[in-house]
């Protein structure tokens, strides 16, 4: 079982890296881009014995305590029950 954690900047928090990426994309000729914001993605492999609910609670706690800084970031968690444990 895998937890997929997305950490994104809160709306309104300036993202200079996202802006620079946006600018580069425009230089490549991509048009009609409203905005690009950079975030982080984590995959957490969890024990198969956990229920989906336990897995979600565990991953949310890790995201809240470690992966995201609540001052500037939000997070969301998706549990993938079909993913096999890492070898």
């Amino acid at each position, binding site marked *: 079982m895998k937890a997929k954690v997305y950490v994104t900047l809160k709306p309104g*928090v*300036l993202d*200079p*890296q996202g802006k*620079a990426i946006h600018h580069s994309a425009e230089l490549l000729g991509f048009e009609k881009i409203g905005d690009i914001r950079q975030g982080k993605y984590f995959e957490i492999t969890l024990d198969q014995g956990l229920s989906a609910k336990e897995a979600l609670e565990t991953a949310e706690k890790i995201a809240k305590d*470690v*992966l995201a*800084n609540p*001052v*500037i970031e939000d997070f969301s968690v998706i549990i993938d029950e079909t993913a096999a444990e890492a070898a």
Partner: protein
Amino acid sequence: MKFGVLVFPGSNCDHDAYHVLSKHVGQPVDFIWHRQTDLSGYDAVIVPGGFSYGDYLRAGALARFSPVMKAVKEFAAEGKFVFGICNGFQILCEAGLLPGALMRNNNLHFVCKHVNLRVENNRTPYTDEITEAKVLSIPIAHADGNYVCDDETFQSLEENGQIVFRYCDENGEITADSNPNGSRSNIAGICNLDRNVLGMMPHPERACEELLGSNDGREIFRSLAGSIEALAA
């Protein structure tokens, strides 16, 4: 009086802080490895600059889980002095000892240069030997020094005199051009409500000798030493 300088894997300004405290403040100093959990016997702890844990995840984010940080929190709660410089400031924000966060510089550059700082509050243990509104020349060296906080936090920082240093021009004017990283309201350093925890992005330990271009940093360390002495008296 005894100072401790924390050492995390990746700290690189620990020796500078040690040098300044022993040579220019003239007080005993110990290095404190991050796995140590006992801070008894110390009056002040410096959380030095560097790249603890390689800045993995976010600058300062992983250092806050080092064993010594639990002791640092208790130490601060007892009213003892905790002084975070650069990466140390980032660590103190991540650990919740200071409000707000430090993000990537708005210009995306690693900025390494002398800047001017205005002393916004000289009624703190770190600045009480400095004239208010004095302009200090102290270097910065960071990529993540862009101070961010919400409106409510900013208002309480202002109302409670917790903004200790702001980036300014050579005349002490707070201007957009003198802001090197996009920090909210040119904030360069803040303290907690009780004034015993200070964090700042500029490096006063690199500005304690004329040979290095400025010795304005001494005034901060000497104010702190004076405050420790006054407490003991």
